[in-house]
């Protein structure tokens, strides 16, 4: 009996380790709750930015499937008709009056602290190589900490330090960095939404707050609303269809 107990006690840490996800798996899981799904999803996002004494608000309607996403500006009225199209790693901008869409970078600033790449889906598992770091707490939440290094120069950020909750496997904090590891921006996530995915209820991001690393008072809050699975033809994500 004692021998059995001794074996069980010795094996328990290994059992616990086997149940822990790999960094790659953690990224895949956390991506799902930030739009990185193979199904077609849609949601609305409102971006409130504040910088010193100026405030601004912009709204978008997002349709996403896998690595493609279409963001249509819905407010303010001067931006209506503007469209951002994400095709895998290419990003296009189009607005009425342009002869054709213009290729842009996901790193360019969209509004406030938000880059173009921040409003689309998240595919960190595809775009970054994760390395596990010692666990930390975010508030009272014990988290895995991953050091993500970009695999491709067209990603929005070169390097990210990513905190994923041990309990929920959802990202709670991200620090966007330079290639040398210097902090550019900090982001905090909340998951008050949910969507139906493969018969299950999946938590979905409801808020992402991005702060300037040096001046925390400069920030943008992205509020995600009404996420749902939907249907959309492939032509929606075709750059040539933007001009029609």
């Amino acid at each position, binding site marked *: 009996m004692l021998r059995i107990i001794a074996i069980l006690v010795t094996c328990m840490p290994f059992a616990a380790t086997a149940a822990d996800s790999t960094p790659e798996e953690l990224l895949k899981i956390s991506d799902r709750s930030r739009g990185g799904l193979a199904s077609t999803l849609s949601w609305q996002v409102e971006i409130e930015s504040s910088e010193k004494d100026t405030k601004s608000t912009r709204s978008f309607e997002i349709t996403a499937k896998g690595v493609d996403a279409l963001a249509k500006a819905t407010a303010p009225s001067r931006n209506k008709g503007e469209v951002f199209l994400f095709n895998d790693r290419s990003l296009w901008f189009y607005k009425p009056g*342009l*002869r*054709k869409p213009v*290729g842009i970078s996901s790193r360019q600033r969209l*509004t406030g602290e938000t880059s173009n790449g921040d409003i689309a889906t998240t595919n960190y598992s595809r775009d970054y190589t994760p390395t596990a770091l010692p666990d930390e707490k975010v508030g009272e939440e014990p988290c895995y900490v991953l050091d993500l290094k970009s695999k491709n120069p067209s990603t929005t950020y070169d390097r990210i330090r990513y905190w994923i909750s041990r309990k929920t496997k959802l990202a709670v904090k991200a620090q966007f960095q330079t290639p040398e590891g210097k902090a550019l921006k900090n982001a905090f996530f909340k998951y008050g939404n949910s969507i139906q995915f493969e018969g299950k209820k999946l938590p979905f991001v409801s808020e992402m707050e991005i702060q300037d690393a040096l001046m925390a008072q400069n920030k943008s809050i992205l509020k995600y609303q009404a996420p749902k699975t939907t249907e959309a033809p492939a032509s929606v994500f075709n750059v040539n269809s933007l001009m029609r």
Partner: protein
Amino acid sequence: MRDSAQRWSFAFRNLIRHARRNLISGAAIAFGFTGLALMGAYLVRTDAYLGVVSVYLNQAGHVSIYKKDGLQKFLTYPGKYTLSPQDQLRLGHLLREFPEVEFTAGFLIGQGLLSTGCRDVPFLAKGIDDKKGLRIREHSLVKKWTPGLIAPPYDKSLGIYPNIGDGISITGQISQMIGKPKIWDEAPKAVSPVVTDCTDKAAKAKLSETSDVQMVAKAFNGDFSAADAFIVAHHSTGLAFSEETSIFTNLSHLQKLFQTQDITYLAVFLKPGTSTSAFYDRLKQKLDAEVGGYDVYPFYNEKISPFYAGVMEFLTTMASFFFVLVLTTIIITIVSFLTVGFMERRREMGTLRSIGYTPRMIAGDFFRESTLLIVLSAMSGTFVCYVVVVIVNSLKIQFSPPGIANTMPFMLTLTPLLCLSVAALVAGIGLSSAWLKLRKLTQEPIVDLLRG
């Protein structure tokens, strides 16, 4: 009068008496004069060339007016530090009171990315009214001093394409960087297709066949903005550091891209011959007294034309150094001429003193000889200068000084005023040193002079 004429004749004969020695002294002075005058001619030419480049081709105007602190901050906070339509109206009214103003032009400056679909390069664009742009390029001073910068391939300007509202002019260097060598006249008036795979060589090759590009920027209100454009012309800024980023376009096109009615600065162009510094002082005084909130800069301010200010300061310092060297040589030549001449004619001076000549009269004779020597040397030097200038200018030498885009012609500009100024300087320094030396030399006792 007759006595005076006789004395000058006497001085001239004394010069000829020791022709060989005096010829050498005269040649030294003449060459010194020639060196100073030619250096001055190069300075005049460089000042005019770079001045025209700064004022007209880089559109600084003789004087530029910015919003207070606007020059330093307009790129970082464009909406706050630009001139609104109300500012422009107010300044326009004020400038009507100055008759020396030839015309004014508003400029908008903004930065962004120029995109072909496969290649992006950063730009610093200047938006100008087409007619004003044409007027600047066709200005008489531009044609006189920088004809090479408006000759082919830079002979087209935005102003000749009034129907193409989104025409831009880029530098040859940008054209190479983005792989778009053709301009509107040479390329089909079509828009290149969207290229989704930039590794496709055939698709990329099609981009070089057309002249269409797109401009991407952040609007003044912070929005992401983009605009189409056609390359209608090539230009050169004349300066190497701006050749990689300079774009000119129609003011309203750039205002549309940046979603604003503002301009960055108002350039004031003065009538030829007007003193920029005098106008600047008066304008600054009037602006400060009547309408605060603006900064005024003359074109030679290092913040407006750093290259012009830097080069002219360097050349002036270098020229001053050589001026001092050459003038010192001239002083030594004249002092040596007088000393040797006096030593040789001691007994003659002693004889003249013994028959009643005063030291002042003797000094006067030597002074007249020195004057004649300097005048004759200056005249010879002027002749040599003109010959050298004609030869150098006819050779049409092209050279690439640091900081200049492409090449610039090595030419000299010799003016009568320059020759007279150098002659006056040489004569003034030379004769002053002569008089000081003579005062000492002619004080010797008669007995010592007669002994030899």
